[in-house]
């Protein structure tokens, strides 16, 4: 077919249609102007007119849980008893936990994988000194204001480097992650619209199923425009996530007796 000025527009708009009809999420980026926006809307209505399906039961249940959780948060009804609310002074200003070699050995983590152990060792040794005992700490995430308690959420042994474990407390849901030997807790609520993030081990990120935001294991947006510019892209994503998002909430964590605890606000 001869090249026409229209061809480029047709090809671009086809991407919108492909996503729409292929069960994916169509992107406004493939829609150039108000005329095409009307076309997109017409296409969406044509697509939606063919017997709107019932929602996926898994989606319905997941949303029910989210609502229940939010509802309970608002009602302030769940107040589990504090577990050993022992606060430890510390001079570190991040919410990560540095595992000592002793702790790692105790939990068998070092032996978990040769490569991983190397990474853990480097990280621990890199701090220059062992931090005291089973301490933890801290951050400024606001979750620690007022009363709270430590909630056990995972076994350290289950969180090998590069792994993540989901947890759920009365106040919030999240993941315990092991970022090259550093244990961290991250909220699994996307800071865009509150969708539930899922962990992708291949990518070492928390991904939002709603609009495709990815957060790294420090809780920072990983595929936003700024980062994209610095790094030249994000694995597997065709384009940068268009909105600058605040980092994920990072509750305090501590490790004690081979268990990971997060500091949960008394709601």
């Amino acid at each position, binding site marked *: 077919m001869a090249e026409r000025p229209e061809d480029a527009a047709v090809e671009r708009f086809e991407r919108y249609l492909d996503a729409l009809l292929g069960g994916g999420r169509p992107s406004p980026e493939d829609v150039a102007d108000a005329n095409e926006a009307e076309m997109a809307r017409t296409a969406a209505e044509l697509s*939606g007119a*063919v017997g709107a399906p019932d929602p996926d039961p898994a989606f319905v249940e997941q949303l029910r849980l989210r*609502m229940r959780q939010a509802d309970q948060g*608002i*009602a302030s009804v769940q107040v589990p008893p504090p577990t050993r609310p022992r606060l430890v002074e510390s001079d570190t200003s991040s919410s990560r936990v540095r595992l000592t070699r002793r702790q790692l050995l105790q939990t068998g983590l070092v032996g978990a994988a040769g490569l991983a152990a190397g990474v853990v060792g480097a990280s621990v040794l890199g701090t220059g000194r062992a931090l005291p005992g089973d301490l933890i700490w801290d951050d400024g995430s606001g*979750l620690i204001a007022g009363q709270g308690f430590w909630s056990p959420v995972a076994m350290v042994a289950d969180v090998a480097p590069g792994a993540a474990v989901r947890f759920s407390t009365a*106040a919030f849901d999240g993941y315990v992650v092991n970022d090259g030997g550093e244990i961290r807790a991250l909220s699994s609520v996307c800071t865009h619209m*509150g969708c539930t993030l899922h962990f992708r081990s291949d990518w070492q990120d928390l991904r939002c199923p709603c609009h495709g935001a990815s957060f790294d294991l420090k809780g920072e947006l990983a595929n936003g425009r700024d980062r994209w510019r610095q790094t030249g892209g994000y694995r597997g994503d065709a384009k940068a996530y268009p909105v600058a998002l605040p980092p994920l909430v990072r509750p305090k964590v501590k490790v004690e007796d081979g268990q990971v605890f997060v500091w949960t606000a008394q*709601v």
Partner: protein
Amino acid sequence: MANSVDRPHNATAPRGRFEEIYDAQVVPIYRFIYARVGNRPDAEDLTAQVFMRAVEQLDTSREEGQIASWLYRVAQNAIADYWRAFYRLPLVGTEQVAVGWEPMAPSASGESAPTQSEADADRSHARVQHLLHRLPEHYARVLELRFLQRLSVAETAERMGITRGNAKVLQYRALRKAALLGETDG
């Protein structure tokens, strides 16, 4: 999240009522939205927005019809916001609807959600048929194959005895024409 005591809520509303409302409304609201965005991920996303907003703001002591109306208005606004992202311009045609209890339709209490939803499905089906009938035949055909029968571009091209490139162009023009007809329909 955690410290949400200062969020607006109705402390006296019976708990558990939400789940009743949710069970009754999630399917019709989802379908209402799906009919307007045409794809599952966005329909799920907007449905979640509607109900998460309901958790914060819905007065569950209202009667069923009023609650349904409220949910549909919130859904309509969410859909308008959604399309606004595609226009990147102030949206003409899809008005924001005030979400409050005041501008309640007088008949609202008599309308149950499924009735609204079914009527809505019939309406959008009828609109599509009406639209296709008013298009030139080959335009209607390409849209029928691609959207109603859900064929790929390649399959559509084969059925119509044209190249894939031509099928894409035809589809593009058909949508442009259909969009214009849709606008004049009001």
